[in-house]
């Protein structure tokens, strides 16, 4: 699963190998040419010729000095080896060697030739200047030249330079490969994570999200994925809820129809039975009939509620000033719950919503009524509006006891009630209508310690902000009762 990284690395290899090979070839060719100019062989030949020449010169000087010594053309310095005092080291070494004669170089750099001859108990030394030719120095230079030649002959410089070049190039190449692998890994890893996230999301993990934090194209792709996943999750929830609501509506419609069909004859029969009852027994019968009719009326109210739940009032969306509607609903609620405090925090920049006025008012009335009842006397209800992307959010929070986990889970299912009055269908109807307008109604964490509901409604594109809120924002009392 590292194909992208591997491809990046392979691209680097392909892209660099060709110029690298060309560079090595050019360098090796230049090296080959330059080594062709090496002068080792010339130095070898020159040193040998010089050595031979100087040896001839030395031999001639030796012969000449010996002849001159024999002919007494050169003065001798005699050393009596039995006498006290120490002769020069060279003389002593000659004397100890037992040889009859010996030649040796002396002077600085060997520019003099000495001829030592044994004469009884003494050594005669004849000396001659070599005309400024430093034979020992020359010998040293010849030795260095021979060492250099030997050193060159002991080396394959062509191989050495080529291997060094290849080694260094390979080293540089490998060193540059390491950060490339690292970079390729950094590039491919988020894409792999994105791919894996998509796979998990496609496999049913609707809560799959990826960490963002990059400002490049990959970061944009991850952000787009997260947004898409959130949208799909919400759409899926809405679809599931609407499907459930549809089933519940069908059930409610059939139940209401059947009950309605039965309740009408029952009511008529009971009234007929009461009418035909003799006057003497009518008191008991009237009381009993009243009880039956009261229960029938209760059942009829439930039937009407079911019918209302099953009905789908038409959605006629139009641009609405949501801040004005919230303010109006709160104002209407105050007389019914005078002991409760109300606070409206309205976003003056919030755009108009594209929704049906009757449905929006019904939703807000339901939420505010519930909040006021939950908060109770002395409690507080908070209504806020704000823009969130292409939607407008209305939140209603109360300071009531809040909702338990089980209640929160089944809050929007019909026939559940937590109030003294009502059928328990209000929140179901409110959410259904919000969904039908392209918005939603969800339970959120309460900011006042109780429950909190969030209504989202689609904003009008380019519809401008709430004119009502602009006019009233400065006059609103945060703790208005």
């Amino acid at each position, binding site marked *: 699963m590292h194909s992208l990284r591997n491809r990046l690395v392979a691209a680097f290899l392909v892209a660099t190998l060709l110029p690298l090979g060309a560079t090595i070839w050019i360098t090796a060719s230049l090296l080959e040419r330059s080594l062709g100019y090496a002068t080792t062989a010339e130095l070898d030949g020159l040193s040998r010729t010089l050595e031979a020449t100087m*040896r001839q010169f030395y031999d001639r000087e030796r012969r000449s000095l010996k002849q001159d010594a024999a002919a007494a053309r050169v003065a001798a310095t005699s050393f009596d080896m039995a006498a006290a005092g120490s002769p020069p080291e060279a003389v002593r070494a000659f004397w100890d060697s037992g040889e009859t004669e010996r030649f040796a170089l002396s002077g600085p750099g060997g520019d003099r030739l000495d001829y030592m001859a044994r004469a009884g108990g003494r050594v005669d030394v004849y000396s001659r200047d070599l005309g400024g030719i430093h034979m020992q120095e020359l010998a040293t230079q010849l030795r260095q030249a021979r060492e250099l030649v030997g050193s060159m002959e002991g080396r*394959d410089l062509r191989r050495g*330079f080529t291997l060094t070049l290849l080694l260094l190039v390979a080293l540089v190449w490998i060193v540059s490969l390491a950060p490339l692998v690292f970079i390729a890994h950094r590039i491919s890893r988020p894409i792999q994570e994105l791919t894996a996230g998509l796979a998990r999301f496609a496999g049913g993990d609707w809560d799959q999200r990826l960490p963002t934090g990059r400002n490049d194209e990959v970061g944009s792709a991850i952000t787009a994925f997260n947004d898409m996943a959130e949208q799909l999750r919400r759409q899926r929830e809405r679809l599931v809820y609407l499907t459930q609501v549809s089933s519940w509506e069908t059930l409610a419609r059939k139940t209401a129809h059947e009950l309605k069909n039965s309740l009408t004859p029952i009511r008529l029969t009971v009234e007929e039975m009461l009418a035909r009852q003799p006057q003497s027994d009518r008191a008991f019968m009237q009381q009993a009939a009243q009880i039956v009719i009261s229960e029938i009326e209760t059942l009829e109210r439930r039937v009407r509620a079911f019918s209302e739940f099953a009905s789908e009032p038409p959605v006629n969306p139009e641009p609405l000033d949501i801040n004005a509607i919230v303010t109006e609903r709160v104002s209407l609620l105050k007389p019914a719950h005078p002991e409760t405090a109300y606070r409206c925090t309205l976003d003056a920049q919030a755009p108009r919503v594209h929704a049906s006025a009757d449905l929006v008012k019904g939703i807000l009335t339901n939420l505010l009524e519930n909040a006021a009842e939950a908060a109770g006397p002395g409690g507080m209800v908070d209504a806020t509006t704000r823009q969130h992307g292409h939607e407008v959010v209305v939140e209603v929070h109360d300071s009531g006891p809040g909702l338990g986990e089980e209640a929160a889970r089944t809050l929007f299912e019909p026939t559940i009630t937590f109030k003294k009055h009502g059928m328990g269908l209000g929140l179901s109807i409110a959410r259904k209508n919000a969904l039908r307008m392209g918005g939603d109604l969800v339970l959120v964490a309460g900011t006042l310690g109780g429950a909190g509901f969030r209504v989202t409604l689609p904003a009008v594109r380019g519809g401008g902000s709430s004119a009502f809120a602009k006019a009233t924002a400065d006059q609103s009392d945060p703790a208005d009762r």
Partner: protein
Amino acid sequence: MALACAAVPGIVAAQSLTVRAAGDMLQVRGTGLRLIEGVVAEHLKDGRSVRVDFEMTILDKAQGAAITRNRQSFTLSFDLWEQRYAVTRAGATPRSISHLAARDAEAWCLENLSLPLTALGRFARDLPFWVRVEYRVQDEPPPAAETESPFTLRTLIEALSRRRADEALARSFEAGPFRIGN
């Protein structure tokens, strides 16, 4: 006590080594020792110095256990103009000699490989012993630049361009039995 060295007939003749007692020292001579020839002679005549590591071992029998041994290193050089060899014995008391012919230089090395007779223990009295002489020839390495780091481009090129070094020339001679008698 006058010492004389007598080789057991038949065995010494087949060997190239002979030994003799010189004072209280045991000296060895190698009649067949051809150290300065071939590559060694070429190197020397090129003006290069050659180091030779000698080891003389006294054995209790042929290929036997060592009784005592002496190691000595010598540096040989060649005088280009006189066409003569010079030898320097390394060690605590270095000695030098020059103006030698090749065979004389070889003999001088062996002479300086002597062992005190006392080191032979009971073999110095009447028991036969064997002598093994080994030497190994090595080129004197050129003096290295002291300031040069071992990790430079030059050392890398040097290392990669070096041809396979010739095996160090090494030879071994063994002879015996010898006996030191009155």
